């Protein structure tokens, strides 16, 4: 079997809060392979978003290893992590996290610019058109609805053709119709670029669309279910 795209080996995460040290994740070990779609599920506070953040290098593990595309993320500094994401990853958040001082087009073009693409804005325009927002290119996030903002966020994550797509409850802040549209786009992107998709979700029907579901509880993996395409 080919090497996994993402590996967590005995990964732990503890945070120092006002009430003392809190252990968020306990010895998580998992592998994700190229082209897989994986749903991370579990009740609130189970640690599923934290696992996703470790995978994206947005949070630093306090123990164990996080290996992405053969590279140990725990050994990288902030700038190395940023460059790694720039070249390999796209992230979508529940609250969209568009930069409020930039228009939709500028938001989408930014990762392409950071990667040094000379045609960043042309590609960004194409990405926006792909999510049906060509007409909103010059609007600021505050001038758009939640569904539109999430489509921009999706376009921004997908624009650099990332090998890994991470999505943290991408439909959590959206109504059913908008949520459904986002899901279709997310899976459409994954199909088009062959990316590996890891998403955190509360929605069983979304988890059911993934190749594999990993359930977490109290910072540990509770169980995993593997589905084949026929299921």
């Amino acid at each position, binding site marked *: 079997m080919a090497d996994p795209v993402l590996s967590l080996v005995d990964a732990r995460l503890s945070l120092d809060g006002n009430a003392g040290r809190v252990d968020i994740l306990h010895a998580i070990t998992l592998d994700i392979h190229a082209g897989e779609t994986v749903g991370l599920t579990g009740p609130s506070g189970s640690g599923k978003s934290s696992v996703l953040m470790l995978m994206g290098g947005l949070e*630093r593990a306090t123990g164990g290893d996080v290996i992405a595309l053969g590279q140990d993320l725990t050994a990288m500094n902030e*700038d190395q992590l940023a460059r790694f994401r720039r070249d390999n990853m796209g992230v979508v958040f529940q*609250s969209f996290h568009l930069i409020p*001082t930039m228009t939709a087009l500028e938001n989408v073009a930014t990762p392409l610019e950071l990667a040094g693409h000379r045609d960043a*804005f042309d590609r960004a325009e194409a990405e926006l058109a792909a999510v049906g927002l060509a007409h909103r290119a010059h609007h*600021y996030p505050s001038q758009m609805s939640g569904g539109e903002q999430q489509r921009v966020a999706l376009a921004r994550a997908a624009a650099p053709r990332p090998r890994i797509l991470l999505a943290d409850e991408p439909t959590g802040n959206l109504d059913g119709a908008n949520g459904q549209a986002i899901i279709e786009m997310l899976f459409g992107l994954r199909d088009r670029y062959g990316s590996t998709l890891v998403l955190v979700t509360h929605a069983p029907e979304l988890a059911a669309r993934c190749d594999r579901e990993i359930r977490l509880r109290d910072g540990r993996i509770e169980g995993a279910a593997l589905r084949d395409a026929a299921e």
Partner: protein
Amino acid sequence: MSIAWRIARRELRGGLKGFRIFLACLALGVAAIAAIGSVRAAIEAGLAREGASILGGDAEMSFTYRFADDAERAFMDQIALRVSETVDFRSMVVIDRAGGVERGLTQVRGVDGAYPLYGTVVLDPPLALAEALATTEHPGAVMDRLLIDRMALTIGDVFRLGTQEFELRAALVDEPDGASGGFGLGPRTIVTLQGLEGSGLLSPGTLYDSQYRLALPQGADLAALSVAARARFEDTGLRWRDSRNGAPGVQVFVDRIGAFLVLVGLAGLAVGGVGVSAAVRAYLEGKVETIATLKTLGAEGHTIFAAYFMQVGLLTLLGLGLGLVLGAALPLIFAPLIAAQLPIPIAFALYPAPLAEAALYGALTALIFTLWPLARTEHLRAAALYRDAAGGVQAWPRPIWLMAIVALAALLIGLATWLSGIERLALGTAGGIMGALLLLALAARGIRALSRRLARARILRGHTALRTALGSVGGPGSEAMSVVLSLGLGLAVLAAVGQIDTNLRAAIQRDLPTVAPSYFFVDIQPDQLQPFLDRVTGDPAVSRVDTAPMLRGIITRINGQRAQDVAGDHWVIQGDRGVTYATSAPPPEEIVAGTWWPDDYSGPPLAAFAAEEAAEIGLSIGDRLTVNILGRDIEAEIAALREVRFENAGIGFVLTLSQNALAGAPHTHIATVYAEEAAEAAILRDVAGAAPNITAIRVRDALDQVASALRSLAAATSYGAAATLVTGFIVLIGAAAAGERGRVFEAAVMKTLGASRGVILASFALRAALLGAAAGVVAILAGGLGGWAVMTFVMDTTYRFEPVSAIAIILGGALATLLSGLGFALRPLAARPARVLRARD
């Protein structure tokens, strides 16, 4: 207890965390004005308390060109317990050295044995004055340290004044009446009147003033004595001063400077107002949810307004209190330092009046700058709870609030104008501040629009740091307005001071000496005039020599009425003026109105008056002037008005009389000599060698003195501008702090998208520097306009843009914002993206 007050109280339980900038801005502005006002009050109280000591007596009677006559002496002896006679004039200290003769200008004071009536003359070595001035082989003298050093004298050296030799016995450290004299051209030398008798410097016609200081009985009625003395002797040229106002020149100066600095302080307060407004706006933006919830629960607009108005009101009181404590305490803390800087007595204490003035300004400023954001809360709708764009914080206030803001601003300007006592300057300053604020606000809008446009420019694509910086300056939530307003106003004041200062110095140092004479020679006796002319006109290095007969006189009456009643406090009738006579008419183009008298005129005395001053006083052809010259009244009719140009430092007399009017009056001549600089020393040596009584005033030295006085004024203004800048910097820090949350988020998203810390830092640095530089550019524009206006309309001279200080100001602005911006960039750069982003989910 009203519901609004209950809401306000509950809201304030959250503490003052969001209001540190609000309090700092208000307290600093109020403190600056309170401190300036307190120091001014302390100086005025000191001058009043020490009036007798500063004046050198309870009262002083002084005369020009002459000593008191018997009737005047008898009057003094009748009202005073003791009388001290002194004389004051300019002369040259002359030293014979092996290498030649050296000369230095000095202001001589000849004193009698009774001097000083009050206070002590402090000498180094610490001798008694009588001992230092006693005659042994030569009469003794004491001299200002400055002149001792300049002339390289040592104690025991012998020097000459006129034809008399004196021995230097001590350095003059302090003369109690030093501040009363006003502006002297040279450092002080004190000798005895007796010692001066052999100097030839007090002969009839030479320029000197005599003063008689009077020690009056306890409880003497100064007002009544002043009236009595004036009634009896006024037309003889007597000037009366008493301890109620010992140093009128200093008093007026302190008053003017104090008032001016209060106006500069108001500029600081206006900058503080920008910070106060920004703080209230930021606070209310954080309260959108609370306000929307309150509205959902049924609170009406006016209740919400009242609740937040009360909160801001309480905080304003706290800010004012802090400012007043600081403003009252600072002068007391720095009392020894301030006292050491000023040669006048200062009575440091707590003065309520300037504190009240500062509090009033502070309260009005806080109201003006907070009403706008407060009034907008009325428009906030409950829908803001679930929709961002439910209006409210961006809407305009209702017209009634706009009118209230305008009325309050008018009240503030009116008060400042009335309390400063310098109406035109106060209105000019207020107009300048408002104009600058308007210009800056427009500029901030322009900068935002331009940045938005540039951020989308194709040429910037790929330059992520610059593009995101421009996007942030132009986009929503931009700090452009607060930064440009706060920093810009302080920089504009500084720029205006810089432009005016440089232009004035240029006018004095570069432009003037090319048309000004090298030397003024005064006290040339009539029999010395021809030898003097022979020496200078024969010199090939001399391009021009002008001479004129010179007397001093006081205009006492105009058309038979007291001059003050006609001309008010115009400078021409303040004290004595130079008066000349002329036999021949000036060139016809100089005569503006009337006709000049014939060369052989022998009728009743006629006068020619300077046209501009005549217009200011309201004099016209045919008016009669009474001029007291050497105790004698001369009445002359104005026959002509002539153009007199004072700005080239040549000879210019306001009043010219027909020759027959002054027949027989003892007089001297003055002369101006235009010579090449290299020849100046030789001319001085020859003229002074032949006629020791002639005093030479080097125009360059005199202009240097004027320039140095202007420099002190510019420095005082710069300190005021610096206070404005400090407030501006606090506002900047406030803006940077308020924007930190936004930058933490932005940095987290940028990191997620793959931006390195270098790119993010560059973007933050660029937006700060861009805003600072923009504020600087606008400040240069506003300051340049101010400088041009002052030079053109006040100074009546040409204005030239001065680039060095301008560039420094732009760089300074960029640096200030860069520092405050970078100070608040550390947290965003260090924060882990996951924590920041999840905290927002």
